[in-house]
């Protein structure tokens, strides 16, 4: 059957982006991973509010907590960034403005991801 898209549409890049299904799939996978991670995180924090500074650092240094924190940062920020992408695409119609804001958001997300990973690693591997 003949392709429904006209050659001009293909050349101009109209139509859905090619990685929409990857976006959908990753959003769901990170969501699934985040369910147990969120429960762990919230209930850990709930038991921690009156911890002293050194107790807090010791909690982070506990290997399971470190690993889960690292995973939370990676999956949480990625999931959030995918969600914000949907919101931005919904509400901003001008192409250049949308592209610019999306790039800023994704940039901030990945920057904060590295900042978060660095902080956790620094606490874990740092002295004292």
């Amino acid at each position, binding site marked *: 059957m003949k392709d429904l898209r006209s050659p001009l549409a293909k050349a101009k890049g109209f139509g859905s982006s090619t990685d929409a299904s990857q976006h959908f799939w990753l959003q769901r996978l990170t969501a699934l991973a985040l369910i147990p991670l969120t429960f762990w995180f919230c209930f850990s924090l709930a038991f921690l509010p009156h911890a002293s500074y050194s107790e807090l650092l010791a909690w982070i240094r506990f290997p399971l907590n470190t690993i889960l924190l690292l995973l939370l940062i990676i999956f949480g920020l990625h999931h959030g960034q995918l969600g914000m992408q949907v919101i931005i695409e919904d509400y901003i119609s001008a192409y250049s403005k949308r592209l610019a804001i999306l790039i800023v958001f994704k940039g901030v997300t990945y920057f904060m991801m590295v900042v978060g990973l660095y902080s956790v690693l620094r606490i874990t591997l740092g002295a*004292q």
Partner: protein
Amino acid sequence: MSWNDQRPMSPHLQVYQLPLTAWLSFLHRATGIVLFIGILMTVFGLTILATQKPEHWHVLQTFLSSYSGHFVLFLMSFSLYYHLCNGIRHLFWDIGKGFTLLTIQRTNLAVLMMSSILTFITWVIA
């Protein structure tokens, strides 16, 4: 298109009474935005801890222990639990389960109740 357009728009939100499902869907999006800010703040808190200077942490802790800090934390915790419960509901919808009107009406309330209960439990513990 709509934001650059000066022509008047017919009222919708001021006029129609949306069903609960619609409000919950909006709340899912709104809590998503709130949580994005929240996770950025959490990473910021981690960097404060990472400086390994107790004074920095005590400044943040003082804020978090204050009334406004508690308020922010309460909003964040409810947003997190609501987004979590409704998110699980979305995942069920993605595999095609739970689309009948009756199920949706029941799970509307279930989601609201679960998120309130989880928030309450968390705050009772802490």
